[in-house]
């Protein structure tokens, strides 16, 4: 997670699908395997980085398999690549395997549901800059809203397997229970803790769930839940750090909470991207200039997608 790991080994590689599993009404988890040069490049893929997938040659599912609300949109053809972060990445010997988690929201992601083991995909990566966790933090708070969980899962996995010793707590929020993009829920954990999510539990990370309608975990916004936790915490701000990914409104709230309490905070931002590799300038994020009232645009695909919360103008 250091600056020099900014791998210059980015390139166009082939990935082979190892599985594609539906994990909820609108979400799937996709396993990808890299070999050769791709395995080397993606072995250095850091939590928070992303990759650009070419979905243009992937077939549409049969009409019955397309969700009603996407029936018209799904028929559009797909030209540009699509950006995705990873929820997990493991390098073992000559193979690197990754898992991504995607929400079915439009023509590309509808097509992705037809991928099956053995299919090949062209993928450009690793791209952008991931989370950078400074030394000396005791507790890391992960805050994920809606689909914004994959890079946080990857971060939990990476820190745990490095034996970093940092305590990690994951706050996960969604509109309703069905919209929580998690595969395994351990309902036997006490209601007080909300129920724990297996993706985090397997790295020994406690997870606290909130839904807007109260159908799972706390009722209310994930950021309200975070605030309650912070009120009770005995940690000093320097001992803590927050990493968040999710809808822009949630990121804005997390950023405010962090600023008010002087807690280090990094945000994984999303922008519409045409290239993902710094060519088109489409992915602008408005950022503060230290010591000035001016703002500048930084490119999400190169400077981000992970930004320091203090930089970003909401």
């Amino acid at each position, binding site marked *: 997670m250091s600056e020099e790991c900014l791998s*210059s080994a*980015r*390139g*166009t590689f082939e990935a082979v699908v190892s599985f594609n599993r539906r994990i909820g009404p609108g979400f799937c988890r996709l396993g990808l395997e890299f070999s050769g040069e791709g395995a080397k490049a993606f072995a250095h893929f850091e939590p928070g980085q992303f990759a650009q997938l*070419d979905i*243009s040659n992937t077939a549409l599912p049969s009409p019955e398999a397309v969700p009603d609300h996407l029936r018209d949109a799904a028929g*559009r*053809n*797909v*030209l*540009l*690549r699509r950006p995705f972060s990873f929820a997990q990445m493991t390098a073992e010997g000559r193979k690197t395997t990754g898992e991504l988690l995607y929400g079915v929201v439009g023509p590309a992601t509808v097509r992705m549901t037809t991928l099956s083991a053995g299919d090949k995909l062209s993928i*450009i990566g690793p791209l952008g800059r991931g989370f950078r966790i400074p030394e000396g933090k005791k507790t890391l708070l992960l805050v994920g809203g809606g689909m914004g969980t994959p890079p946080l899962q990857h971060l939990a996995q990476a820190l745990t397997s490095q034996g970093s010793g940092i305590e990690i707590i994951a706050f996960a929020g969604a509109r309703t229970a069905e919209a929580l993009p998690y595969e395994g829920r351990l309902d036997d954990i006490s209601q007080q803790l909300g129920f724990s999510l297996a993706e985090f539990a397997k790295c020994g990370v406690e997870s606290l769930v909130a839904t807007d309608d109260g159908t799972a975990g706390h009722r209310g916004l994930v950021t309200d839940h975070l605030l309650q936790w912070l009120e009770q915490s005995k940690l000093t701000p320097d001992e803590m750090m927050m990493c968040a990914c999710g809808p822009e409104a949630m990121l804005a709230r997390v950023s405010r909470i962090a600023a008010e309490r002087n807690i280090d905070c990094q945000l994984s931002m999303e*922008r*519409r*991207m*045409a*290239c993902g*590799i*710094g*060519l*088109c*300038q*489409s*992915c*602008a*994020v*408005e950022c503060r200039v230290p010591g000035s009232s001016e703002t*500048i*645009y930084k490119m999400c695909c190169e400077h981000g997608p992970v930004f320091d919360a203090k930089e970003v103008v909401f």
Partner: protein
Amino acid sequence: MGDNIDISVDFAGLKLVNPVFTVSGTCGYADELSDFMDVNCLGGFITKSITLAPRKGNATPRIVETDSGMLNAIGLANVGLEKFIEEKLPVLENFSPAVFVNVAGQTIEEYVAVTERLSSERAIAGFELNISCPNVKKGGISFGRDPEQVAGITSAVKKAAGEKVLMVKLSPAVTDISVIAAAAVEAGADALSLVNTFTAMVIDIETRKPVLANRTGGLSGPAIKPIAVYLVNKVYNEVAKKRDIPLLGGGGIRTALDAIEFIIAGASGVGIGTTNFIEPDCAAKIIDGIRDYCVRNDITNIKELTGSLLE
């Protein structure tokens, strides 16, 4: 195979190793594509538009995908002349493709100032005059619609360009592109490039608002290719052929087959834009594909192909 095939072209006095350019706004300022291909294999390279002062560009969303195309409204975001000279020009020094700097501005004086400042730089072969950007309020396309204004700005910039080649980039969003093309050539343009993007709009029907923050954007990509081929052929027949002015043709080129269509229509060079985003090494593949086409069709010199359309 193909050793005896000559795919080099003469482009307004420049000798290019092949006809393939990567075009403005889709390939960075210099070596941004080099993680993906050897940029020195290109015939020509055109920088992102450079303006006198840096420009922040438009708010987001700046792009949206459409069927077989995309709209962009970047708003000429760029680092500005000084930073370009400081940071990018040294990289371009070692470039073998012919480098064109795409020049934009809000006033004629601004175009002239940028051009003059760069006119003695060794790294630069020529300038591409952008009078066709649809995404800025002042300048851009407002210079490119009226033949008198086109003539005025072309001759002013031609003087500023000194010995360098001046190429004028035409907008397709005009009543008769040949009138504009002729005005540019009469005023001193050494080459013409076409097309820039088509002004277009996408509406979000749930919010009834335009998707792009700028309301409108420029349509590029495969969706525009047949129109662009037609316009290149029209300008070739009506303006370029008799005056021996080379055309850089493009708009939606994805493969060598697309590039060859433009050459047959009348282009001496071909420009690749949007496809760089999807396949960042596409230009190298297109160069190989053009050579293969020549082998298959017994063409020993690509120049035979330019404007070879049979009626």
